[in-house]
């Protein structure tokens, strides 16, 4: 059974305007997203700014309550469960944020930061909590001696390790990592990525890994989902989506990544125009205005989600080309 199952998840934000601050429109930040995540696996979620990937991560964790749909963690629907039960369920799911400078309180020591989830959930005696903090620091590759220091004394990579230690404190089954390495330099980024891969291997944690960086996502993920304007347009095993992307948006996205090899120039598919506003998405396929393979039907009918993979290896794509 899947650890996490997301069904038709939707998150709309009202847009207020005018003198009376009436709701004049809805931003469909997440619009009918479905997928499942097995225990001990990583699903990479990619897309450009405003595609809804961070909102999706937060809606799954109930940090932002979904407008509709289901988020089923170990058989329990988080959207409909009681607040008390939800608090208990929060032990199983944690988040790692992008900016290690903003996500740690500057007035708390490393130990206080990592210990906090244990205190909130009343786990262990103070002595046990401290022992746990030491253990967690070692797990993320830091010396326990740094316990009493403050975040400003650490570099970005070290802060991200502290954030990861905090996320691990409750032995969660699911971690949503929202752009966890985007603020880090290349050489430090590799260290943190390896740490995340090791945690997944050794502890069997499932990750939802959100990033705009396709190469990073490929490196850590078993499956990759591509989002555009609130919708999941393609979902497939990682090696497959990179080898054989089917959705024209995925193809464009992949070809746009600058490659550190001057000999591999120009097989690029440059898109024209910009991402439309999610307040006013085009009818039909959300990508049709920029799609190089656009057909008549694309501007009229929302494309169905099709499975174009081999038997037993689902490869989902929402595109009329494969209908």
């Amino acid at each position, binding site marked *: 059974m899947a650890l996490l199952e997301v069904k038709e998840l939707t998150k709309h934000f009202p847009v207020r305007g005018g003198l009376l601050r009436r709701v004049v429109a809805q931003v469909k930040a997440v619009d009918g997203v479905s997928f499942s995540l097995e225990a001990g696996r990583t699903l990479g979620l990619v897309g450009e700014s405003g595609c809804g990937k961070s909102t999706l991560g937060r809606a799954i964790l109930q940090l932002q309550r979904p407008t509709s749909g289901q988020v089923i963690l170990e058989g329990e629907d988080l959207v409909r469960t009681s607040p008390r039960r939800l608090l208990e369920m929060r032990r199983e799911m944690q988040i790692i944020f992008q900016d290690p400078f903003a996500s740690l309180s500057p007035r708390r020591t490393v130990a206080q930061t990592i210990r906090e989830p244990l205190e909130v959930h009343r786990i262990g005696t103070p002595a046990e909590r401290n022992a746990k903090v030491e253990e967690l620091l070692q797990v993320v590759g830091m010396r326990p001696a740094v316990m009493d220091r403050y975040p400003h004394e650490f570099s970005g990579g070290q802060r991200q390790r502290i954030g990861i230690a905090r996320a691990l404190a409750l032995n969660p089954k699911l971690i949503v990592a929202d752009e966890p390495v985007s603020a880090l330099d290349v050489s430090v980024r*590799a260290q943190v990525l390896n740490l995340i891969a090791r945690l997944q291997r050794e502890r069997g944690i499932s990750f939802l890994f959100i990033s705009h960086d396709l190469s990073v996502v490929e490196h850590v993920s078993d499956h990759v989902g591509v989002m555009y304007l609130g919708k999941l347009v393609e979902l497939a095993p990682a090696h497959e989506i990179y080898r054989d992307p089917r959705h024209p948006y995925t193809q464009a996205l992949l070809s746009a990544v600058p490659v550190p090899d001057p000999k591999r120039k120009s097989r690029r598919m440059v898109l024209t125009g910009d991402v439309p506003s999610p307040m006013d998405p085009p009818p039909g396929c959300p990508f049709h205005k920029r799609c190089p393979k656009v057909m008549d039907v694309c501007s009229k009918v929302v494309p169905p989600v099709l499975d174009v993979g081999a038997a037993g290896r689902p490869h989902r794509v929402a595109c009329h080309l494969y209908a």
Partner: protein
Amino acid sequence: MSGAPLLSVRDLVVEFATEQGVVRAVDRVSFDVHRNETLGIVGESGCGKTVTGLAILGLIPSPPGRIAGGSILLEGRELVGLPESQLRGIRGRDIAMVFQEPMTALNPVFTVGSQMTDVLRRYRGLTQRQARGAAIELLAKVGIPAPEKRIDEYPHQLSGGMRQRVVIAMALSCDPKLIVADEPTTALDVTTQAQVLEQIVKLQQEFHMAMVLVTHDLGVVAETCHRAIVMYCGRIAEKAEIGPLFAHPRHPYTVGLLESIPRVGEHEKEDLAVIPGMVPDLLHLPPGCRFADRCMRRQPLCDESLPELDGDDSARSRVACYHPF
């Protein structure tokens, strides 16, 4: 490259006074930029790449910063020590700049058109009407659709990619000899980045400009530059043409950087190669090679003295390392 270089930077030293002491952000850096070429300056945060770019523009904030040594020659004319009034004439006319965040370069309360025509009238002495025509032409050049409509819009009405195009159009408006672009596409999404990079390469060729492109992204360097310098802790670690730099990187730092980048299409869930440790504190630099502490080829000599770049600029690749690849 033949002929005299357009820009020649020699032994540039930039220092900043901090409460803890003087930090040398750029330490004896030398390079040339020729006409019709793009030079990349690449490295991680704090390596001195941005400060080098600012020094060329005469924009080191002073205090706390100052150019503590060296020279910057533009067509043989010394820029270091020029009074601000003269530098202002050079900036914009001879050297233009493009920064990471386009909103810092655009004034939110004026339309795109009025900001562009201001520059064109002032530096090229055009009438309002001529300036407007020239501005529309420039906007079209940088790939803005319906420029005659866009010219009357305000910056907030444009997307991030469009704004950066407008900034590039403004940088081009005085036909500069040199453009210094600092992370021009870092704030943009990948598909927009691809559009803007393609435009930059096209314009560089069309206008026969020289360009200094400051970036942390080796992929961007590979796709846009002719030569590059790799900086580490204020020093040049490696200086090479793009071909040899990526085919045969010689400095252990360059090698480590290239290996630690995950690449699209090479799926393997194995560990990435890692450069162990961290960048040293600029206030407490070791006497020897600054990378020694993290280097897999470290020998006793590396801790004793600072390696200088080998050979001279006639070589396709130069490296500051005692035990290069």
